[in-house]
């Protein structure tokens, strides 16, 4: 087992390198002189020349890539001109907020999605199934940012149950209760689409499994229906659901962008959008690489869980 984890970690290295190359290439697509693009309105000829030298932009592409990679490995992601702050510091400051939001949403959508899907499949064509299917359809069709706006309008403005936006109250204590009341709406809004996708997939995976021969064997053994569905069928269905959970984690993590904008959540997503609009390229670059790297690590965990569940995966 430990051997598998180590191997899996080692196999992440080429992926991480790949990510850095892709980001590097994308950023190299920026039209015109990169230094001017990075400095934006701050660009004076002296500044441009200095930055060109600092970033090694006068050197060939491949050399530039290794300089950039080397700097990143030493924790130097560059300096954001718009915030006049170290890029890594800013990301680390913001990432916690995104992690809380995305993490809670992810737990919500995984649990709700799998349960709803399994329930729906086990009662195929019954009223429960139809209700769940309809809710799921609406869930995957609604833009999360629109949903968020409507939730603010209804729960915060009309009913005044939850605060309108932000992560902490402006005045008052920063305790867990305050956080939860701020977190509730954005977390739900963010999880709706993913819940829908997971529920749909769990339902079809369950339907697929329920037709398998080993389910007939379980019934022939005289097991109760509860056991057949929640033990035998669900466990087998999870094999195809778990990889999708991994993909959905990516949707939640990056979909947080919209929700952070709507709810003024101080996370990495909002930082990225603001940076793009201000053309703060170093901040964008750093943010993307950092979040993608975290996601790669998360997927390793998913793989490990999958290998624990399914003995057919060779370790």
């Amino acid at each position, binding site marked *: 087992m430990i051997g598998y984890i180590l191997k899996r970690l080692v196999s992440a290295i080429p*992926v991480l390198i*790949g*990510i850095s190359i*892709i*980001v590097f290439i*994308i*950023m190299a*697509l*920026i039209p015109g002189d990169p230094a001017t693009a990075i400095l934006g309105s701050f660009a004076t000829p002296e500044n441009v020349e200095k930055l060109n030298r600092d970033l090694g932009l006068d050197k060939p592409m491949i050399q530039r890539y290794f300089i950039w990679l080397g700097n990143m490995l030493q924790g130097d992601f560059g300096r954001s001109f718009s915030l006049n702050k170290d890029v890594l510091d800013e990301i680390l400051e913001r990432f916690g907020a995104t992690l809380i939001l995305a993490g809670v949403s992810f737990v919500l959508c995984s649990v709700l999605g799998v349960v709803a899907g399994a329930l729906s*499949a086990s009662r*195929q*064509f019954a009223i429960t199934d139809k209700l769940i299917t309809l809710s799921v*359809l*609406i869930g*995957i*069709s*609604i*833009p999360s*940012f*629109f949903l968020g*706006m*409507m939730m603010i*309008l209804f729960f915060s403005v009309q009913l005044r149950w939850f605060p309108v936006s932000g992560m902490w109250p402006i005045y008052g204590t920063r305790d867990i209760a305050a956080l939860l009341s701020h977190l509730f709406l954005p977390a739900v809004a963010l999880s709706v689409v993913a819940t829908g996708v997971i529920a749909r997939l769990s339902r079809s995976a369950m*339907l697929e499994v*329920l*037709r398998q*021969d*080993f389910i*007939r*064997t379980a*019934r*022939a*053994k*005289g097991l*109760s*229906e509860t056991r057949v569905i929640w033990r035998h069928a669900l*466990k*087998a269905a999870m094999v195809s659901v778990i990889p999708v959970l991994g*993909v959905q984690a*990516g*949707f939640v*993590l*990056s979909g947080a*962008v*919209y929700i952070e*904008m709507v709810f003024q959540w101080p996370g990495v997503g909002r930082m*990225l*959008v603001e940076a*793009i*609009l201000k053309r703060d*390229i170093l901040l*964008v670059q750093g943010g*993307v690489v950092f*979040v*993608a790297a975290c*996601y790669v690590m998360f997927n390793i965990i998913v793989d490990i869980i999958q290998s624990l*569940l*399914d*003995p*057919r995966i060779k370790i």
Partner: protein
Amino acid sequence: MTRFIALFARSQLAFFGLIVLSFILLLAIFTPFLPLNDPNVIDTSNRFKLPFSEGAILGTDHLGRDLLSRLLWGTRLSIAVGLCAAIIAAFIGSAIGITAGYYGGHADNFIMRGVDMLMAFPYILLALAIVAALGPGLMNALIAVAIVNIPFFARNIRGVTIGIVHREFVDAARLSGMSNTKIIITEILPNVFPVIVIAMSTTVGWMILETAGLSFLGLGSQPPQADLGSMLGEARAAIITSPHTSVVPGIMILIIVMAINLVGDGVRDVLDPRLKSGALSTPRSTTEVSKNKSNTGLKNQILLSINALKTEFRIGDRILKAVDDVSLTVDKGQCLGIIGESGSGKSVTALSVMRLVSSPPGVITNGSIDFNGGDLLELSSEDLRAFRGKKISYVFQDPLSTLHPLYTVGQQLSEAIQSNSYVGKSEKNKKALELLKAVRISNPEKRLNSYPHELSGGMRQRIGIAMALANDPDIIIADEPTTALDVTVQAQILKLFQDLRREKGLALVFITHDFGVISQICDKVAVMYAGKVVEIGPTAKILDSPAHPYTARLKSCVPELGQGKRNLLAIPGFPPMIDNMPSGCAFASRCQKVKQNCYLTAVDFTNIGQERGVRCLFPEEIKAG
């Protein structure tokens, strides 16, 4: 095509979605010709007018622009961009997927590593990075969304392509002298195409949402041009004071995407071949019984007696009579063989006993199944459960697919052991070990912790048998238990069955298509053809002198070992189609002895003495003895 539409219209929801979508598409196409206000004319004195006010049916936005006009123009733009992104992503992604899947090897490795890298990014993050580089703008958002979705298509299509490349018809095409390009175009593509259509129809909605999202963030369409996303983005500031400016475009996106998703699901269901066989529904725990109360009356000592059983499959309007008027009996310690070809109804008969026929579409419409004098068909699902695995247990054909892949042998055995009452852990273990020893598994302690995929075919079948033995049943019903096994392993398993019968006094129902197997282990045999029992009697007598022409011909068309090269006596023609049974004897058209009467009416089962019965008007003469 008409079939496609008919199938599609069967799903009311999808049809509804199609109507809504067509309406919106028509609106979008004809927007330039509609008598609308200019969407970009600013009139700040009339800002935030409410819906249904004069001159603006849906009201105006924060710059006093007509919302209806902006909505329709925005819809047009959103749909166009979403569709373009979907087509680009589908085209490039599928091309990549087919290439990688078809050529395999290093090309595949290289391409798929690249795709994996793209997929290592959380979805929207990559789109953000691309827009960041290219700069905000609708065109750039389109490119970003398309690129982000390419890996999805590439992966899916590659998977499907690999499945097709390994099919035999592709090898056949190679042997027909076709070049690779030709094979891809004429053999692979037509088979992959439905999958591409499905993938596209289920992702167009996504892509519309994604481009709207980028516009919402201000990274897509730039003012004054507006798609639905940027309309929402601009309205966000006024969400509390003038919610209608957000609600209008928001609802529109919801309707469009929902309609597309409904249509997409409909398309998927129609193109998914499994729907055509009616297998899309989950089987219930017990087969549906829909019949009049039986009047068996015969409360005899016979262990299991199946009387006038009819089992049908109801698929759409078609009724397939899989089992038609079958009566069989099995006594204590007896071994009954049921022999027949595929489609003869032998497996369905066996599964009907414990009501394990998939339902829907299976329904038992007549007869009774008396076990120790009580009719099993009268029991509720819950009561029936007390018989399953305890009194009557099953061994199935393919031991790999019939064992749960994720539980160990030990777990599956102990589940069977304690399915009727709680058993302590150590006792369970002891019993599981005993069972493994009973089925002659070497090294049983080690095997308890093995998973089914770690065992060989013969070993898996032994586990299947051990599970069937767990509660000391009175009868084991074995449905082609050796068909999937090699001949040397088959002999081992047959031996095991024979030994177990002797040791435990078990009754056995053994289903097979092989007379050799029947002759080796069965006391009594029933021959089935087209859903009916055509002949029944003691094995030795039937094999020695068959009464039904079908039995006789079937026996002689199977080559027997030890006679060297020779010509075989083939039965001409094909078995009747199950949904188109002739009114007379089902074998008539293939029978050498057929007479006019055989075609006319159904043939009754007649007793011909010596515990034998036959369903034939002109049976073969049987030898006495």
